[in-house]
């Protein structure tokens, strides 16, 4: 039996449509860290878009029956509708470079035939250190240890 995907069919469809339309976005936060092996838990998948005002995004959302809801007084920007509940929108990442700089350094995770851009573990750690909220401080030692492990594995692979 194939491994279960973390996404429902509608969530997967949303990601695939965004990728098909070449929308520039990446997975960030603890979901990015866990995709790279960090033993942390998360409740949602944070997405960082280069330009939320892009027509490509609204067309992609329309295609799957979802919509972008701009931020208001007490609410952050969000995606609503089919397949959108799992995803949170991130407008700003502390301690990182521009979207374009970070996009070039992303790791890629296969989503069927498409590739999902994911902020590297090293950069997730940098963002958590910079954000420095109580919940970020909790994850920093775990991310640091996970990074030590992944770097040790890479060093070992290079030696072979």
């Amino acid at each position, binding site marked *: 039996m194939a491994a279960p995907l973390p996404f429902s069919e509608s969530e997967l469809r949303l990601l695939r449509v965004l990728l098909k339309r070449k929308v520039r976005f990446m997975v960030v936060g603890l979901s990015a860290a866990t995709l790279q092996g960090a033993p942390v838990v*998360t409740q949602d998948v944070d997405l960082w878009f280069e330009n939320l005002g892009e027509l490509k995004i609204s067309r992609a959302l329309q295609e799957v029956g979802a919509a972008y809801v701009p931020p208001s007084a007490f609410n952050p920007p969000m995606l609503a509708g089919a397949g959108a509940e799992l995803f949170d929108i991130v407008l700003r990442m502390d301690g990182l470079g521009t979207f374009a700089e970070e996009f070039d350094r992303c790791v890629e995770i296969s989503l069927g035939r498409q590739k999902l851009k994911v902020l590297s573990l090293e950069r997730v750690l940098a963002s958590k250190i910079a954000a420095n909220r109580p919940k970020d401080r909790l994850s920093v030692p*775990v991310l640091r240890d996970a990074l030590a492990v992944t770097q*040790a594995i890479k060093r070992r692979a290079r030696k072979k």
Partner: protein
Amino acid sequence: MKRRVQSANTAQAQRWARRLSARVTKIIAAHPDADPDNVRHTLILLEEPPLERLQRSLIRGRATAIFRK
């Protein structure tokens, strides 16, 4: 026959645990400040495909959220 299969599985599990333990020891030797539990769990997760890792994290994260309510 069944007993033979079970002992083969047990031997395989023991080999895996010994290998894992050796890898944890090696990494801790290079990073003495690292938490051995974090190192061990990372090594275990790295044996799974990325989307499976995310799946586990989301299941546990949501279970924790429900438990807190």
